[in-house]
């Protein structure tokens, strides 16, 4: 069964460093998303991506964040100059928005900023 794959599963980084979180969406999907979840709390929307551009971004997604789809398969989230409060679980999701089709989520990357 197709699935969304995220790497790494856990990343520890020092405050101020840059991190890149990687996602491989399901191959025929066209809509991609990043979400953040702090310690099992609410699932916060960061950004959606369609047709090689950002469709929508939240107030959380400031200049510190960027997304790329560099090679037609990977979908990355870059966080520049990480802060302690960026520590969270980051989920990638993809969808084809077909009938009765949900967005599928990856297993997440746990980011710990120390």
């Amino acid at each position, binding site marked *: 069964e197709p699935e969304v794959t995220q790497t790494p599963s856990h990343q520890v980084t020092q405050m101020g460093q840059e991190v890149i979180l990687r996602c491989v969406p399901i191959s025929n999907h066209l*809509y991609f*998303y990043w*979400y953040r979840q702090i310690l*099992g*709390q*609410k*699932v*916060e*929307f960061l950004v*959606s991506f*369609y047709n090689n551009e950002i*469709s*929508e971004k*939240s107030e959380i997604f400031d200049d510190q964040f960027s997304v790329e789809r560099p090679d037609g398969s990977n979908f990355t989230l870059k966080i520049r100059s990480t802060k302690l409060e960026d520590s969270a679980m980051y*989920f990638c*999701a993809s*969808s084809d*928005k077909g*009938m*009765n*089709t*949900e*967005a*599928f*989520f*990856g*297993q*997440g990357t746990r980011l710990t900023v120390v």
Partner: protein
Amino acid sequence: ELKVEQNPLFLSMQEGKNYTIYCNYSTTSDRLYWYRQDPGKSLESLFVLLSNGAVKQEGRLMASLDTKARLSTLHITAAVHDLSATYFCAVDGNNNDMRFGAGTRLTVKP
């Protein structure tokens, strides 16, 4: 900006009882989802609801959608311990921004 509200946030039930989780959203949408999340895990899709009056059932869970009232419900019938988890509703916004409610943490007690 699309707002999604869920209630209750916490729900403690006895096994065998019924209960309903509510999800309200602020703007028109043609797509609503229910997800389940177990502790430390990712989000597992339960239902996709696409039209007014849509009703879907899977086991002890039934979801419905009223697009005019901008309301969806997730009804739990004869709860069992295995249903203990956090349940989220999510709504598609106009700019492909799928937004989540705060989640309902369900605990089913024997």
